[in-house]
């Protein structure tokens, strides 16, 4: 009851000095809005990075990388075998903790073409069917490679939707689905038949923009929005949609023939990716793989394993940094806001010394005066916080206009809660000193004050 009245009186006091109170709140508004907006942007970043990581094959994917031989094996450098299909077969046979092994033989600086249209895909790689599970691809149309394709090194390929868009036109522009199965394209001048096409992959953000774009397109028939601008960027989804896969053997025979020695095309793979049965068994599985490869490499350690753990660590570090800088900005704003509130409360009680004396004369205890001032301070802070929450929405829009990214910022209710809580705390801390000062006023001294 008294509390309610106190809040009411506090609000009235704030209302009497609208402009002053507004200026005072600015620090809190800034602090809260930057906290909420930063958290939203960081969250969006996090989501985007996780999404991209899954697009690249998921958490359980391990890359076997080539590395320089260690110093103590430097004299064996010329005997280092590199990663070959022997490793792949050995890993499959002798490393039971490893679920799949997917070899990749890539081609550098490759162009695909069709009817005078030229395009550089994200990668052109010879693969085994294991690649589907390794890189999390699903076919939308056609088929993947058969054993026969592999055996006979047939000139067949499976493409991503991006390649289709570039060489055959995109369905959005054509207004109809385009399925180029059975069509011929050229990879570095060699004819290939498209036997399959993957699904289209896109981030949440791209999906949203695409759907919005479709709506506004059908609704207004005006100039269509720049559809899926995220695709242009060199991001994980763009890469995923712009691949050309051929059978591994085909790649080896058709494009590596010019290299190598003794009429055997250069057999080095550009990548070996493995997936383990379970992430808990990652360590022993990698040890197993290492043992196997030490055998096939004659003890020369010219390879290394790179797990997604490193990636995740990297992501987490970036997120932590972003959080930290956001937190520091917000913290400083709140601090400044708190100082502003304390300042205004001190000024306010100085103006109201006589009023405080009157209240004491008619029965206000020091406690109720203390509470009065404290509540006023907290009310200012909380009003600022509410304004800040409203402003954060605008700030998010503003910031994403200023620096567009592929990631939709996600405003999190719990961050809003924390921000409001902190503002309240700032209000309490800022109000304590003025409140004590007011509560300590002697009734007579206060009444006599001119």
């Amino acid at each position, binding site marked *: 009851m008294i509390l309610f009245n106190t809040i009411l009186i506090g609000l009235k006091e704030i209302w009497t000095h609208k402009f002053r109170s507004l200026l005072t709140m600015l620090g809190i508004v800034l602090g809260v809005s930057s906290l909420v907006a930063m958290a939203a942007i960081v969250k969006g970043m996090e989501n985007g990075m996780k999404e991209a990581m899954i697009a690249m094959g998921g958490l359980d994917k391990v890359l076997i990388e080539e590395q320089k031989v260690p110093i103590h094996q430097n004299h064996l450098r010329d005997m280092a075998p590199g990663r070959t299909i022997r490793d792949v077969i050995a890993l499959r046979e002798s490393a039971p903790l490893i679920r799949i092994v997917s070899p990749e033989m890539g081609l550098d600086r490759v162009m695909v073409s069709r009817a005078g249209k030229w395009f550089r895909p994200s990668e052109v790689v010879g693969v085994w069917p294991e690649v589907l599970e390794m890189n999390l691809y699903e076919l939308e149309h056609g088929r993947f490679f058969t054993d026969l394709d592999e055996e006979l090194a047939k000139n067949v390929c499976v493409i991503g939707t991006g390649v289709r868009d570039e060489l055959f036109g995109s369905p959005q522009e054509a207004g109809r689905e385009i399925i180029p199965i059975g069509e011929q394209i050229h990879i570095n001048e060699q004819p290939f038949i498209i036997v399959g096409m993957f699904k289209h992959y896109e981030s949440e953000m791209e999906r949203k923009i695409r759907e919005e774009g479709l709506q506004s397109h059908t609704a207004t028939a005006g100039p269509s929005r720049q559809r899926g601008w995220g695709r242009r960027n060199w991001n994980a989804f763009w890469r995923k949609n712009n691949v050309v896969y051929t059978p591994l053997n085909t790649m080896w025979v058709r494009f590596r023939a010019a290299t190598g020695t003794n009429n055997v095309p250069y057999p080095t793979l550009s990548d070996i990716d493995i997936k383990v049965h379970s992430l808990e068994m990652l360590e022993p599985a990698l040890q197993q793989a290492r043992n196997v490869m030490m055998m096939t490499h004659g003890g020369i350690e010219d390879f290394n394993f790179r797990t997604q753990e490193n990636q995740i660590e990297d992501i987490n570090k970036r997120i932590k940094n972003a959080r930290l800088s956001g937190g520091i900005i917000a913290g400083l704003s709140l601090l400044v806001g708190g100082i502003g509130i304390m300042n205004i409360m001190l000024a306010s009680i100085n103006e109201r010394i006589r009023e405080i004396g009157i209240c004491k004369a008619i*029965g206000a205890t020091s406690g109720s005066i203390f509470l009065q001032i404290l509540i006023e301070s907290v009310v200012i802070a909380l009003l600022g916080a509410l304004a800040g929450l409203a402003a954060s929405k605008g700030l998010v829009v503003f910031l994403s206009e200023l620096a567009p990214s592929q990631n939709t910022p996600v405003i999190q209710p719990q961050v809003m809660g924390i921000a409001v809580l902190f503002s309240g705390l700032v209000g309490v801390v800022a109000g304590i000193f003025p409140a004590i000062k007011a509560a300590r006023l002697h009734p007579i001294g206060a009444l006599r004050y001119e």
Partner: protein
Amino acid sequence: MALLELRNVSKIYTLGGEVIRALDDVSLDIDGGEFVSVIGPSGSGKSTLMHILGCLDSPTHGTIQLDGQMIHSASAKQLAHIRNQKIGFVFQFFNLLPKMNVLQNVELPMIYAGISGARRRERAMEMLKMVGLENRARHRPSQLSGGQQQRVAIARGLVNDPRILFADEPTGNLDSHTGEAILELFRELSTKGRTIILVTHDPEIAAVTSRRIEIRDGKIASQVDPRLAGLDRVATAPVAG
């Protein structure tokens, strides 16, 4: 037992080495229902006496009993409670809260008493009716005349039904006509049995009350007390020193 009992009360200020005896060994009894005026020249200690009687200030020496309760040793919180429940104040400069309307000003002591909203409103309107300002409830103090403001202050002073109403120069800021009306209101309250202590430096105003206490240099110089049998109206205590 008297409503108010002062025994050897002194209030001493030390300002830069100089000792000021604002009250000097004052003993005094006031009964319930009395209408008392405290008179004396400026600086004689009238306000100081009122503040101590009204629990706004504590004495340097001596004891005070109000309504059977020892005041001089009470805590600040207890004093606040006593001021709220047993004492009403009316000041020379009205001392209304400028940001609140008349009704809210009258309600304020009841807020500190923890009385519920509906009951507060009802009681405050009752008091405003008593001072003839029920149609000004929503006005700000600044929109009222001095006399009206002082009526609001009286309504506020009485709203918690205190045992004693203190008034320090309540007419000091009013023209004589308005002052007269305010005094009339006090007289009316007195006849209804309210204990009132009126501080003034004007003998003409003091003449309104039956009992008069004259203060000089912090001491009671003389008293007119109708209760003192046989000495009808002229019981004079000798001036000390």
